[in-house]
């Protein structure tokens, strides 16, 4: 039998609000006031999100970000730095102990990433889950995912690239000294894929998010109800954006 799930499409928002809303949804699901929740969203302005354990000055050219109007936010999840530009981002929150949130982090990545693989198949893109947390199409990474467990809930969020500007990405990220920037850009171009490049046509946010919704519902066996975030969630998201995710003590934590 399918499990009830709330589906949210929350549009394009700032990095700080986006991370605030993911955490606010986790609070709602943890409190039992909402069922498992799947959310699709985008970022404006463009932003770099850092993994919880990354050192900001080791990963990001903060001055270049300032000059180009790119926000920097630290996630509550581990993983690597992500340049959020032309992409669809999703988050999913499920209580621990639910059949979709087993104890093993590795197993739960595989279970939840099946939704992305199925969504990409609906778009005509063959892909596979590659542990620990990537989805690869024809040898190229097309989606990265990160997960945490808090307050008795699993939160996983991740991105699916619609298009990628590798040069811009590397103007914002720190490049290891031992690698020549040009060589690194070529390496990354060979290793990173986008839906538009794979399908040979522009692929938009709505088309992709809808296919992913269908993919998650089918692969995870969900009984979906499209809703809007609750007022309390929005209020908490704004508060977390203001008091945590945009603050130096959090962003510069490491």
């Amino acid at each position, binding site marked *: 039998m399918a499990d009830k799930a709330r589906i949210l499409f929350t549009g394009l928002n700032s990095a700080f609000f986006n991370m605030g809303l993911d955490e606010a949804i986790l609070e709602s699901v943890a409190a039992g006031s909402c069922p498992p929740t799947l959310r699709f969203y985008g970022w404006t302005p463009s932003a770099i999100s850092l993994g919880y354990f*990354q050192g900001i000055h080791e990963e990001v050219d903060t001055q270049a970000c300032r000059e180009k109007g790119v926000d920097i936010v630290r996630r509550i999840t581990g993983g690597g730095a992500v340049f959020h530009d032309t992409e669809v981002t999703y988050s999913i929150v499920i209580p621990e102990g639910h059949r979709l949130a087993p104890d093993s982090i590795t197993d739960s990545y595989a279970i939840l990433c099946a939704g992305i693989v199925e969504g990409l198949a609906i778009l005509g893109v063959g892909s596979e889950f590659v542990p620990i947390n990537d989805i690869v199409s024809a040898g190229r990474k097309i989606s990265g995912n990160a997960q945490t467990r808090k307050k008795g809930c699993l939160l996983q969020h991740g991105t699916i690239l619609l298009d990628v500007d590798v040069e811009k990405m590397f103007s914002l990220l720190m490049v290891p000294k031992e690698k020549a920037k040009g060589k690194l850009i070529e390496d990354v171009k060979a290793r990173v894929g986008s839906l538009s490049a794979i399908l040979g046509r522009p692929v938009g946010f709505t088309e992709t998010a809808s296919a992913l919704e269908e993919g998650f519902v089918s692969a995870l066996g969900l009984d979906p109800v499209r809703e809007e975030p609750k007022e309390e969630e929005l209020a908490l998201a704004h508060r977390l954006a203001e008091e945590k995710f945009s603050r130096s003590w959090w962003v510069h934590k490491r």
Partner: protein
Amino acid sequence: MRIETMGKPEGCKLLRVSVELSDPAGSDSLIGWISVRGDFFAVPEEGFEALEKSLSGVRVRDLAEVFETQARKLGIKTLGISGQALQSLIEGNFHGR
């Protein structure tokens, strides 16, 4: 002596390690403090600082074992990082690798 090292040991994510060691630096050195950054996962994330702190006073040669013991004691699940990887990265530095 302070050592800065980084690497992506097999089965791990990118790990960046800063560590203060007693002189002379070697596997018998005591860790004064250690800071680990990188792409790895540790849940709960907030517990990782306590794990780092618990490694102060540990000999480099014991780091792999103590890291895993302390992670278990603190209830921290890790992915993409291991005590053995940290110990190898630091010891690799002694051997000029």
